């Protein structure tokens, strides 16, 4: 008892120091978790969480019965994730290999500073820049017009929307994502590399047998994180451009939740879809991590 009191006296300052941060996390991460209860309610804003009637699983109907609007959002989400895993994920690895092979240190520094920069711009700015370059009144079409050539309609075309947002992601984050691969590449064992050269291995074989295996752990780790995030695709980016192309091409799970709940007032269904998305998201991270362990890799956490 006595030691407990001593401990309290010693540590109360530390607890006080932790208090502001802990309060913020409790209020805005844990308290809202409880708010998911409205997924089981016919939520009426004027009645609030305490007085809205419970309706069982009614709100999950669009998910359970495969409502076309919901399915469209789910399919769009998965397609965009697939595109991005296949086409976007490998790019920073390639770029890092190129940067790593660049001998001039100054040139490397300069290109890195330029290529990392877009990462720090907001999505509003990136979308605005893309529209100004490729929009119907944008720079590209301005040139074509002045050269009396036919113009391109890229912005606002539903069929090209996924291509558009993929290009934006590539432009914004490919440079920045090289950082972690470059760090891994800097730890490739030079002795192994020299041995491969002495053995007469070609550049391609060295890449395949020495370089790539030594950064495999990092690649797997990032792939897991990306797959764990399969159900979240560029929410801000998409909501900014949705009005131009319509929901058919652009609705994803997050925008579905926003449009149905906050805009449309169908709080219960939106919360239900959000809740399922959250649970499946956590399961995906844990599952992908377990798969990585099964393959003998480290994963996000050990054990």
């Amino acid at each position, binding site marked *: 008892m006595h030691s407990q009191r001593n401990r*309290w006296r*010693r*540590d109360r300052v*530390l*607890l006080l*120091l*932790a*208090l502001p*941060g*802990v309060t*913020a996390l*409790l*209020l*805005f991460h*844990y308290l*809202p*978790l409880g*708010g998911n209860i*409205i997924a089981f309610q016919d939520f009426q804003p004027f009645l609030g969480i305490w007085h809205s009637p419970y309706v069982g699983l009614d709100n999950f109907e669009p998910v359970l019965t495969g409502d076309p609007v919901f399915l469209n959002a789910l399919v769009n989400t998965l397609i965009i994730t697939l595109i991005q895993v296949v086409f976007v994920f490998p790019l920073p690895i390639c*770029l890092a290999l*190129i*940067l790593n*092979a*660049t001998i001039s240190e100054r040139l490397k520094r300069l290109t*890195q*500073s*330029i*290529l990392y*920069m*877009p990462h*720090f711009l907001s*999505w*509003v*700015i990136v979308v*605005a820049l893309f*529209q*100004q*370059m490729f929009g119907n*009144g*944008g*720079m590209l079409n301005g040139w074509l*017009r*002045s050269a009396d050539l036919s113009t391109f309609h890229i912005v606002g075309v539903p069929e090209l929307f996924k291509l558009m947002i993929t290009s934006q992601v590539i*432009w914004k984050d490919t*440079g920045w994502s090289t*950082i*972690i691969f470059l*760090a891994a590449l800097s730890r490739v064992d030079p002795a192994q590399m020299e041995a491969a*050269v002495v053995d007469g291995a070609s550049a391609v074989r060295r890449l395949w047998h020495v370089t790539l295996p030594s950064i495999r752990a990092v690649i797997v780790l990032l792939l897991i994180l990306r797959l764990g995030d399969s159900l979240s695709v560029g929410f801000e980016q998409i909501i*900014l*451009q949705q*009005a131009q192309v319509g929901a058919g091409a652009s609705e994803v799970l*997050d925008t579905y*939740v926003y449009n149905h*709940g*906050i805009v449309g007032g169908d709080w219960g269904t939106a919360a239900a879809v*959000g809740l399922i998305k*959250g649970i499946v*998201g*956590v399961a995906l991270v844990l599952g992908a991590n377990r798969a990585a362990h099964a393959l003998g890799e480290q994963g996000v956490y050990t054990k």
Partner: protein
Amino acid sequence: MGEPSRLAIGARGLVLGLGCLAVVVPFWAVLTTSIASPEEISRAGGFVLWTREPTLDAYRAVLSGGIVTRALMVSAGITVVGTALSLVATITLAYALSRPGSLLHKPILLMTVFTLLFNPGIIPMYLTVKQLGLLDNYLALILPVLVNAFNVIVMRAFFLEIPGELLESAFMDGAGEVRILLRIVLPLSKAVVAVIGLFYAVAYWNAFFSAMLYLQSPEKWPLQLVLRTYVVNDTPIGSDQLSSNLENLPPQISVQMAILVISILPILLIYPFIQKHFAKGLMVGAVKG
């Protein structure tokens, strides 16, 4: 090592060169168009890549009061206040967690890390902010993102690397926790505090969706919302929005590009400071966590 072929070097140079152009050209086009004269713009029918008659009229129009000026002040205010509050909360929490064995150390650490795994969802977040009476309040843009668990973990890792003897001897001299944090730990952690402060600042400056979600009155809009309305959505911007005293309003496109430049500029200005820490390998530690 084997000599790389000329072809390989050329191909690599080409890729890097094109990549850099893809980043630089849009910035350049936006900048030159924002300072080009109205005649040049109408002659080019839009974008201008080189201007002989630079003018700052568009900036004067945008910055002489009106919606853009106000939004700029709002964004600056949120960024400064938000970053300061976030740093205080992050530093104090990271410090408390860097003293293993203290009361509730384990549960608080777990609770912090656990927030990285899930996201409460848009609807519950909105309802929480509403319940707390923060709708249409600038605090709604700060408090929900006050502490980023990832930043806490990174900062804690740095605090843990400070030699324990240093702290012990200060305790012997009768210094309290707060004094040790301020006099010993913080001076030794300037770099990590700077980097994390910059990350918070960039996040506050760039925040768009939280503003759209929680702020209802247009006169409270930060710059990103103004940018969305008048540049992305192309809503015409006239003297009503600008309350400008200029006789002739500059062309729409110059005004739009000026708004874009004004929102990019602060990022470009702090970018060298963020970059300074790349070399020290700090960022890699931060990215890896």
